[in-house]
């Protein structure tokens, strides 16, 4: 099934016309309403009306997460605050989050693109959709919720956590569609085992999983253990949230909603645009966003684009599933974590040198985050009470900064392994498996 056949199956030539029209109006609005873009355009002597084709986008500099941070919280908004109907936030590279805003029309478009990926993933209005993403500042929960509701499906806003209750809801409320991160889906399967509930006792039919990279073998495992058809979807708060792209039943790449976003692949080192088929960093430009237009936003996600027509009939390009990033961002239990966030928490706390190591591992189906912190010489290792209260303080601050809990382990000075004088900051054991 296709949610919006007219737009999703638009002949490429018509799509291109819509893209150039929307790109031009986005550039004109950004130039007019966002001082940051006005400055960038003027510094680089770019006149918005000289952008005559999608390919001309290459003349415009990139927008980065740092730009959003520098303009924290509302500096990049293109409409007055009174026109904003929703605020969400996403983790920044340091302590400061990234704030994103939506106008009434943005909310409508968001629901529309989510309805598309849900339909592509096999959800229909007859389905009972359990959304086990966090409802809050994070765009996941509410974003997927609006899309499912727009479709006319029955939505259960279960939110994240409390796995036994999730399974009880799935079983008793006859949930047919599960929406969460892929690792959480596997974890639920594990808990089902503990509760002695079999997939046969559930009514699950389809699952939409996103928020973190996952593999083909993980898909098979989820499908086998939960008895459903699993599809991948992609999105990021800076651009909109979930709904940017999603797999169809062919399960061979994620269709990007190209009437709302322009996708480019660049060489992350040179910034050069790469042709279709080549692997590089995904760069996205919004075409319909009113509140927070983003022009050439660097996602740091590594993928490639496939323009070949898809057997499902959709004409929008497909991006390969994201496996890697160009920066050091980690995704732990669906939450984005930057080593720099950890560092800024540690430097804030007296008594710690910035030598630390982040260890991410997967115990069973769940990600675990451990942070080894090297303390300074003369630290009170012999005083248990002080030691424990210090550790708790770090854990508490870390959780409030990262949005997820981390186990803190204090180690003696100069015990962390150093290569050429530098500590290896991140050890991701999930990748070694």
């Amino acid at each position, binding site marked *: 099934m296709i949610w919006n056949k007219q737009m999703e199956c638009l002949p490429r030539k*018509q799509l291109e*016309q*819509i893209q*150039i*029209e*929307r790109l*031009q*109006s986005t550039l*004109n*609005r950004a130039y*007019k309403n966002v001082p940051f873009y006005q400055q960038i355009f003027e510094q680089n002597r770019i006149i*918005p*009306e*000289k*952008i*005559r084709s999608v390919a001309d986008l290459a003349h415009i500099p990139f927008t980065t997460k740092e730009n959003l941070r520098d303009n924290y919280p509302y500096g990049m908004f293109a*409409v*007055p605050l*009174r*026109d904003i109907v929703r605020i969400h936030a996403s983790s920044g590279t340091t302590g400061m989050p990234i704030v994103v805003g939506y*106008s*009434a*029309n943005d909310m*409508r478009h968001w629901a529309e693109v989510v309805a598309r990926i849900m339909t592509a993933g096999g959800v229909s209005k007859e389905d009972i959709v359990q959304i086990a993403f966090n409802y809050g500042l994070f765009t996941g929960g509410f974003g997927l919720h609006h899309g499912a509701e727009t479709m006319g499906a029955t939505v259960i806003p279960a939110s994240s956590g409390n796995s036994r209750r999730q399974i009880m809801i799935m079983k008793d409320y006859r949930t047919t569609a599960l929406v969460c991160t892929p690792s959480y889906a596997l974890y639920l399967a594990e808990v089902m085992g503990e509760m002695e509930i079999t997939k046969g006792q559930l009514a699950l039919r389809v699952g939409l999983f996103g928020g973190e990279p996952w593999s083909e073998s993980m898909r098979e495992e989820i499908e086998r253990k939960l008895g459903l058809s699993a599809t991948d979807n992609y999105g990021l708060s800076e651009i909109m949230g979930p709904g940017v792209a999603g797999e169809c039943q062919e399960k061979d790449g994620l269709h990007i909603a190209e009437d709302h976003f322009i996708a480019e692949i660049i060489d992350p080192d040179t910034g050069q645009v790469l042709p279709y088929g080549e692997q590089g960093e995904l760069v996205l430009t919004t075409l*319909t966003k*009113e509140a927070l237009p983003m022009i050439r936003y660097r996602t740091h996600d590594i993928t490639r684009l496939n323009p070949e027509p898809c057997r499902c009939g959709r004409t929008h390009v497909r991006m390969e599933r994201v496996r890697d990033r160009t920066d050091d961002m980690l995704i732990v239990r669906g939450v984005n974590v930057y080593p720099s966030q950890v560092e800024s928490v540690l430097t804030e706390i007296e008594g710690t040198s910035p030598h630390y190591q982040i260890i991410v591992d997967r115990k069973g189906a769940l990600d675990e985050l451990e942070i080894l912190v090297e303390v300074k010489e003369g630290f009170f290792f012999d005083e248990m009470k002080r030691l424990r209260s210090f550790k708790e303080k770090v854990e508490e601050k870390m959780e409030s900064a990262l949005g997820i809990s981390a186990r803190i382990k204090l180690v003696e000075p100069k015990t962390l392994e150093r290569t050429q004088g530098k500590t290896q900051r991140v050890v991701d054991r999930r990748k070694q498996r």
Partner: protein
Amino acid sequence: MLTIRNLEAYYGAIQALKGVSLHVLPEEIVCLIGANGAGKSTLLHAISGLVPLAKGEITLDGVSLIGRSPEEIVSLGISQVPEGRQIFTPLTVLENLELGAYQRFRRERRRQISREIERIFQLFPVLKERRSQPAGTLSGGEQQMLVIGRALMSKPKLLLLDEPSMGLAPIVAKEILQIIRDLRESGTTILLVEQNAKMALSLADRGYVLETGKIILEGETSELLQNREVKRAYLGKGRKGFLEE
């Protein structure tokens, strides 16, 4: 049907259009809203071939219109209803309508043209009543009907309407509005320019907002009506409403 890319046009020394791109699909009503001097009429004139030195691309069903004469463009299927009800006042209503078929007159028989006139009379019965009257004696609304009727005489694929409600009493403007709706029902594709944004947005399927020669917003009219910037700038609230926004 109609596709425009990066259109630039000058109105004297002033650049009235700065890289405008838009499209109109078959059987759609698309409106163009914007303040006085935004470039709305210039855009229609450029499509009709009335603006020399227009740059960019304008195509109708794949045929380029740039550099063609207004007569050629009319025979390709575009007919413009000019702003301000420009009729030939001393000529009769019937003569005015016949002039609308000027392009076809040589090619087709008179009988076909009479049939066309009958169709226009069905659409606008009041014109039939006044067929022998000099056009200048018609009321404002009737004159507007006559200009639209005259434009339809060339059997256009695409009708360009320039400010059809201008200078008409509200009740008459409403009547014209209904006529435009009927035209769409009968399958005519329309590009409408209106200063009365409320009327245009209630009538059209999609719209573009033109500001100093550039398009700053586009979308379905239901979305444009939701956009607070459009509300503030073009939907002219009363003072109370304005303060509340």
